[in-house]
């Protein structure tokens, strides 16, 4: 049953309510509030629903199990995204297989249309990215996390996030490293002399 009082609470207060009074309804609200986002991020990182569901289950199991260790020093969502990244990393590492290449799959309804071809092409290019770049670009372009949030979720410096997002976009855009006579490099963000 919906509880308007609980639903009005912040994530952090809901965690506290569960830890202090074992109020399961607080967890229900947290789950309803965040499950789709966690699943969606995991889906785009892992590339299939089954693994994304596993990751989502793992994330919330950890939340429920370790709620007592959450001190509220950072936003609950920061912790949640960190758990999501870790769960995806663990699942990706455990799995020996690679995703089924798109070209071996039958065309879906609508394939051949420009819009669908673009979608399939983007999905395929996304899967081809290294996972660290895929995590960063999914969080940024699909889920609107800012660089600081992504850095906190992935445990890497801000400059690394910036570099990963740029590299991912360059790959998705099909831009060659030497398209301007430049060598690929990461970090810095400085203007560089033309050779």
């Amino acid at each position, binding site marked *: 049953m919906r509880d308007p009082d609980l639903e009005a609470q912040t994530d952090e207060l809901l965690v506290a309510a569960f830890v202090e009074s074992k109020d399961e309804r607080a*967890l229900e609200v947290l789950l309803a509030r965040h499950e789709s986002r966690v699943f969606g991020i995991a889906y785009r990182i892992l590339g299939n629903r089954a693994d994304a569901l596993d990751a989502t289950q793992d994330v919330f*199991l950890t939340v429920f199990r370790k709620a007592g260790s959450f001190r509220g020093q950072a936003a609950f969502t920061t912790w949640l995204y960190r758990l999501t990244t870790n769960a995806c990393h663990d699942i990706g590492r455990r799995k020996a297989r690679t995703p089924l290449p798109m070209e071996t799959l039958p065309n879906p309804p*609508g394939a051949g249309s420009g819009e669908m071809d673009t979608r399939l092409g983007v999905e395929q290019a996304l899967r081809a990215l290294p996972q660290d770049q895929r995590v960063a670009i999914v969080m940024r372009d699909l889920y609107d996390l800012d660089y600081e949030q992504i850095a906190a979720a992935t445990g890497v410096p801000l400059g690394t996030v910036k570099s990963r997002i740029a590299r991912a976009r360059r790959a998705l855009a099909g831009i060659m490293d030497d398209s301007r006579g430049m060598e690929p490099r990461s970090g810095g963000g400085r203007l560089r002399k033309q050779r």
Partner: protein
Amino acid sequence: MNSTHPEIETISAYLDGMVTSRERAQVEQHLASCGSCGEITRRMKTASGNLAALGKVQMTAQEQAALRRTLLGATKTAASGAWGFGGRPAGVTSRRWSSGRLQWSLGGAFALLAVAVVGFAFMRSVPNTDGGAQTLTEAMAPADRSAAPITIASDDQIKGTVLALPEVKGSISKSTAESGPPQAAPEAPALARTDASRDSAAAQSNDDAESFATGGGDDGGGGIAGGGGAYAGAATDAQPFTVDAGAACSAAITATQPDSLEEIAAREISYKGRQAWLIVYGVPAGSGGSFVEITTFVVDPADCANLSGEALERSFLSRYSFKP
């Protein structure tokens, strides 16, 4: 042309508004006079926009219900302090679908053994409507398992049936849903199954049906690794429906479809007098949880356990697409 090119990282951060005002001014000044950097900026912006246009993938109602039942059941175990091995509460096991297929072989055997051992200790503390340990796969069972199966006597009932499903209604509530029969299609032949093989005469051409097709049988050499749970090795008539069979069907069909298709619903049905599963997929509109196209599959549960890939596709009793 300016004497400097911005770094790719700087252009990317510029697109995100993550540069200082000084950097922004420098980039904009450069872009005003450098065609190659302007082209790179435009392409990166397009790539970013194309990615965003994929939209946020939503969980189906079935998946949400399953996750909720599993996780919230686990919290009771957690509250009682009775956690299973490896930090996972007793009774909560991971669905291990590989490429959409359930893996039940050795892992399943060990899991069953573990569940038996752990479940003995915790069976009283694991909440479950059925009174036993619940996996996520089990939790994926339709809530109305005891309800009578949907009956579809002819193909022209499929569209109306699908549109009436609560999950589908919710997905297309903002679109121009219409009810009515699908376009005319050849009658699906009943696939009389023998113990060893199918009636090869049941196979038929689908060349004339772009959006609606009925499938025939296929001997098919593929199979789900390790079998298919309750349907492992099933090759007989009148198999009882089980949760595993439904999950296996859903997973097996999902494995044959691109990830751009999202599963919306799955139902046990009676199709022309035979047991079957109706699996409903959608092509997402991009955002908002609506779908631009819906594809339905009717399949024999045993086929899901015994076939894979193209062989499974050829075995579909019906495949029908429509725009909601």
